C-alpha cells in the first residue's frame, strides 16, 4: 500500500500532471473512456444495483459527461492567476492568486451511485493538476472492478490509480499521507476518515448524509408535489443521499398524499413494481434487513412487500409515524417514506432544528413567504423548493453538507477550488527602497501617522478619491525620501 502511494507521489513530483495541456488531455481521455466503454460501465452498475441501463446512463453517466465538458470549457480560465485589489503600499506591485495542485488526492467513493460519486471527484482532482488514488466502494463490486480495469487503459497509469479492497485495505490506505481526502459515505466512517487525516494535517471534504426533511404545505398542488417526491424518493430504490427521507405535513393531508403517491407509483412502475425495469434493488442483504427492521411497528399505508431473494422492497409509505421510532432515528436509504404529522410550519421548523443539519431540505408550497421562512429559519447542505434533488444538477452550485451531513463541497469550479491551493502571491521589485524607510526603525510618531495613512486608506473606485490619494502618495514618497534617505 505504502509503495503504491509512494509511486503516485513520485509521479506527481515529476511535475507532469501540472501543465494545462496534460490535464485537458487526461480529461478528454476520460471522456473517451466513458463513451467508448459505455456498455461495460452500464452493465457493471446494472449488476450492482439492478439498475436499468437507461437509469444508469441518465443518473450517472450524463452527469459525468457534463462535468467533463464543463471542466474542458472552463479550465483554461480557472488555472490562470487572478489579480487582486491592491492598497497604496502595494500599488506598484503585482498581487494575485495562483491556483496550484495540492499533490496526491485520495477519493473514497460510495456504492449508491458508484460511478458518478467516484468519477466526478476524480474529474475535479485531475483538473486541479493533482495525482489521484481512487478507492471505489467494495459494496458495488462490479463497478469497482470495471474502474480498476478501464482507468489504466485511458489515463496516465502512474498518476491515477485504483486501489480496491474492503475495510482492512481502506484502513491501511488511510494510514498513508495524502494532500486531500474526499470521502462520500456515512457519518461514522466520515469520522474515521477525518481522524486519520488529522494525523497528517490533511484537509478533508466529507460528503455524508442525514435525514433530509420534506415539508408539504397545505397551499400546494398535491398532484404535482407527490409526483416529484415519488420520483426523487424511489429513484435508485431510495438509496440516494439527497432523497427526501421523510415528510412533514399537517395530519389532514396524509391520506391524500398517500393516495397520490400510490397512483404515481403505479404510473411510474406499473401494477407490479417488481417487474418494472426502472425499479432498482437494495445493494445487499445487510441493508435489506436493516430497512426491513425500520418497518416494525409502523402503520404501512401502502407498499411493504419484500422479497429477500432479490433484495426487493416495494415503494412504501408509513403514516402517523412517531418521531421516537427507529425509522426516524437513522437515515433510511431505502424506499420507505415516513410521514410525520405536524400542526403547522412552526412545528415543522422546530422539528427540523431539533435534529442534525441534513444534507438537503425540501419544501413544497405556493406561498413564497413560507418557503423563504423555511430557508431562513433552518440550515442544511442545500435546498430545493417545490421539487427534490434538482439542486444537485447545477454545476455552478457547491454540493456539500453542513454539520453532521458533511464539510466542504464540490462540483464544477468548487471541485477545482477544493483540490487546489489558491496561493496568494505578491511580487515587488528591489527598487524604490526609499519608500520602505517609512517602516524601518528607529521609529517616530510621524511614522505612526504615515503608517496609519497608508494602511487604513483603501483604493476605492471613485475617481476623485483615487486622484487625491495618488497625489498624496507621491507627496508622501517624496517627503519620505527627502527626510530619511
Amino acid at each position, binding site marked *: 500500500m505504502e509503495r503504491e502511494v509512494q509511486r503516485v507521489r513520485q509521479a506527481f513530483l515529476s511535475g507532469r500532471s501540472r501543465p494545462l495541456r496534460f490535464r485537458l488531455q487526461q480529461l478528454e481521455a476520460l471522456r473517451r473512456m466513458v463513451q467508448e466503454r459505455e456498455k461495460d460501465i452500464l452493465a457493471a452498475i446494472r449488476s450492482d444495483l439492478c439498475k436499468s441501463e437507461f437509469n444508469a446512463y441518465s443518473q450517472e453517466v450524463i452527469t459525468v459527461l457534463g462535468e467533463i465538458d464543463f471542466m474542458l470549457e472552463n479550465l483554461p480560465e480557472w488555472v490562470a492567476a487572478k489579480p487582486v485589489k491592491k492598497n497604496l503600499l*502595494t500599488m506598484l506591485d503585482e498581487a494575485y492568486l495562483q491556483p496550484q495542485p495540492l499533490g496526491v488526492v485520495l477519493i473514497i467513493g460510495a456504492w449508491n451511485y458508484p460511478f458518478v460519486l467516484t468519477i466526478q471527484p476524480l474529474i475535479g482532482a485531475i483538473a486541479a493538476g493533482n495525482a489521484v488514488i481512487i478507492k471505489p466502494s467494495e459494496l458495488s463490486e462490479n463497478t469497482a472492478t470495471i474502474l480498476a480495469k478501464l482507468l489504466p487503459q485511458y489515463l496516465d497509469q502512474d498518476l491515477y490509480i485504483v486501489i480496491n479492497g474492503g475495510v482492512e485495505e481502506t484502513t491501511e490506505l488511510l494510514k498513508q499521507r495524502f494532500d486531500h481526502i474526499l470521502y462520500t459515505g456515512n457519518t461514522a466512517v466520515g469520522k474515521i476518515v477525518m481522524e486519520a487525516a488529522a494525523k497528517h494535517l490533511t484537509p478533508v471534504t466529507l460528503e455524508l448524509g442525514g435525514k433530509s426533511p420534506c415539508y408539504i404545505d397545505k397551499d400546494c398542488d398535491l398532484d404535482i408535489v407527490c409526483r416529484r417526491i415519488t420520483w426523487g424518493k424511489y429513484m435508485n430504490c431510495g438509496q440516494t443521499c439527497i432523497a427526501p427521507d421523510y415528510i412533514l405535513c399537517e395530519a389532514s393531508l396524509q391520506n391524500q398524499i398517500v393516495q397520490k403517491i400510490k397512483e404515481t407509483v403505479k404510473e411510474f412502475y406499473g401494477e407490479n413494481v417488481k417487474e*418494472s425495469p426502472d425499479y432498482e434493488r437494495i445493494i445487499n442483504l445487510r441493508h435489506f434487513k436493516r430497512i426491513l427492521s425500520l418497518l416494525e411497528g409502523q402503520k404501512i399505508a401502502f407498499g411493504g412487500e419484500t422479497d429477500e431473494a432479490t433484495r426487493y422492497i416495494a415503494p412504501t409509505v408509513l403514516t402517523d409515524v412517531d418521531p421516537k421510532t427507529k425509522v426516524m432515528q437513522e437515515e433510511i436509504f431505502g424506499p420507505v417514506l415516513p410521514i410525520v404529522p405536524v400542526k403547522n410550519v412552526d412545528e415543522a421548523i422546530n422539528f427540523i432544528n431539533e435534529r442534525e443539519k441534513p444534507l438537503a431540505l425540501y419544501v413544497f408550497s405556493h406561498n413564497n413567504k413560507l418557503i423563504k421562512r423555511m430557508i431562513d429559519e433552518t440550515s442544511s447542505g442545500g435546498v430545493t423548493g417545490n421539487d427534490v434533488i434538482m439542486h444537485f444538477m447545477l*454545476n455552478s452550485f457547491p454540493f456539500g453538507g453542513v454539520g453532521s451531513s458533511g464539510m*466542504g463541497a464540490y462540483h464544477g469550479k468548487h471541485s477545482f477550488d477544493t483540490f487546489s491551493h489558491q496561493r496568494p*502571491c505578491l511580487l515587488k521589485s528591489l527598487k524604490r527602497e526609499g519608500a520602505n524607510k517609512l517602516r524601518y526603525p528607529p521609529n*517616530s510618531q510621524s511614522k505612526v501617522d504615515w503608517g496609519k495613512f497608508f494602511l487604513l486608506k483603501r483604493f476605492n473606485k471613485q475617481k476623485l478619491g483615487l486622484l487625491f490619494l495618488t497625489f498624496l502618495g507621491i507627496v508622501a514618497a517624496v517627503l519620505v525620501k527627502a527626510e530619511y534617505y
Partner: protein
Amino acid sequence: MSEKGGGSAVKDPGAEPTLGTSWVPHPSQSRTDPFEDTLRRLREAFHSGCTRPAEFRAEQLQALGRFLQENKQLLHDALAQDLHKSAFDSDISELIICQNEINLALQNLQAWMKDEPGSTNWFTKLDSAFIRKEPFGLVLIIAPWNYPVNLTLVPLVGALAAGNCVVLKPSEISRGTEKVLAEVLPKYLDQRCFAMVLGGPEETGQLLEHKFDYIFFTGSPRVGKIVMTAATKHLTPVTLELGGKNPCYVDDDCDPQIVANRVAWFRYFNAGQTCVAPDYLLCSPEMQERLLPALQSTITRFYGDDPQSSPNLGRIINQKHFQRLRALLGCGRVAIGGQSDERDRYIAPTVLVDVQETEPVMQEEIFGPILPIMNVRGLDEAIEFINRREKPLALYAFSNSSQVVNQMLEQTSSGSFVGNDGFIHMTLSSLPFGGVGHSGMGRYHGKFTFDTFSHHRACLLCPAGLEKLNNIRYPPYSDRVQQLVHWVLGSQSCTIL
C-alpha cells in the same frame, strides 16, 4: 455573569478576580463540565436568531472598534508588557490591522451577506438559484500569543460579521493582553452571543470535548493535530493557521544592502516571533559574503550599537521559549549577534552561518531573532532543498530577475509567496491568508474570514407548476424517450446540464 460557584471565578488564588463575564475554572470547582452552561446559553441565543440581522452584527463590529479606540493605551501597555512591543510596532502589526478589518467588514457587510446568484442551466432556466451565506452557529476561536490582539480579534471580526455566536480562547501565555481582553472586551460585546474562556492546555482540552460548529485555531502544527482530532468527534470543520520554516532565497543577482534591509526587518520584527517571518536564508557562499556586512550594517542602523537598549526590538515571550532559543545559538557559528540576557529574555538579532541541516536550528520553526544562512549553489538546489521539506506558511525569493522569482514560485508550494520583500502581503486584505500541508488548512482576512465562518448553502427554487416539463424525467422510459434523452444530452453539449 460568572458561572458556577457564585461570585467571580479566579484564575489563581491570590490573583485579581476577573471582572466582566469571562469564565475561568476555579481550581476548587468541580471539573465535571465547567463550560456546559455557557455553551448552552450561546447556543440558545443563536437559535433565537438574534445574531442574524445585519444591524446586530454591525453593532457588534462597531463595539469592537470602540474597544480598540477607547483602550489603546491599555493595549499598548499590555503588548509592551508581553512582548516589549513599541507603540509603533503595536500600531502597525496589531491595532491598525484590526481596525482595518473592522472597517472593511462594516463597509461590506451588506454585500457579503447578500445571496449570491447561481447561474442556471437549460433545465433550470425558469428557477431561482442562489447561494445563501449562513452562520455556522457556535464557533470557537483559539488564539496564540505572538500577535495576541491581531490574531484574536481579526478572526473574531469575521465570525461576528458572519452572524455566529463566538467563544474566544485567548492565549494564556501573553498574560498582559489576556487580562485586557478578559476584563474589558466582554463589556463591549453582547453577552448573549459572546463568551471568553481563559485557561491553559487543560482547560482548552476540556473545551474541545464540546461540540462547536466551527473551530478556528492559530498555533503550532503539533497542537493543530490535537485540535483537528478533537474536532473529528463532532465532525466540526476547522481552519488551522499553523507554521513551519519559511525559506528565504537570495539570488546572486541582487543588491545585498536592500535585501539585508528587507530581510532583517521582517526577521527581527517582534523578536522573530512571527509565523510568516523568513525563517532561514538560502544563498550562495559568495552572496553570503556580501550579505553579512550588509546585515550587520542594517541591524546597527535599526537597533543601534546596543540592540538591547533599543525601544524597537521585542523580547521573547517567556522563559521556556527563551531557553529554547538560547540553545539554538549554539548551532553553526555566530556571524552576527549571539548575545542573550536571561533576566530580560533578550536575544540579540543574530545571524548563524556554517549550519548543518541536521542541527536543531534547521529542524524546528525558530520563532526568534535568529537567522541561519544555508548555502546552495543556485536556484535549482534551493528549490530542491525547499521541496524536500514540509510546505511552509510563506516563501520568499529575492532577485532582480523576474525569471528567477517566477521559477521559484512555479516549482514550489507554500501558503503564500512574496518576491523581493517580507510579509508585506499581510497588509493586503484582498489576499487570503492561510497555509497548505503542515502549515495549515483554510484561510482568512477580509472577505475570506466572512466566507470561512459561513456555510454556503445552495438553494434552488423551482416553479410549482409547469409539470409537463418534468415528464421527461419520470419512468417508465419508453424507447422513444430513451432515444430522445440520449440525443439531447448524449455526446455533445453536456454543458447544458
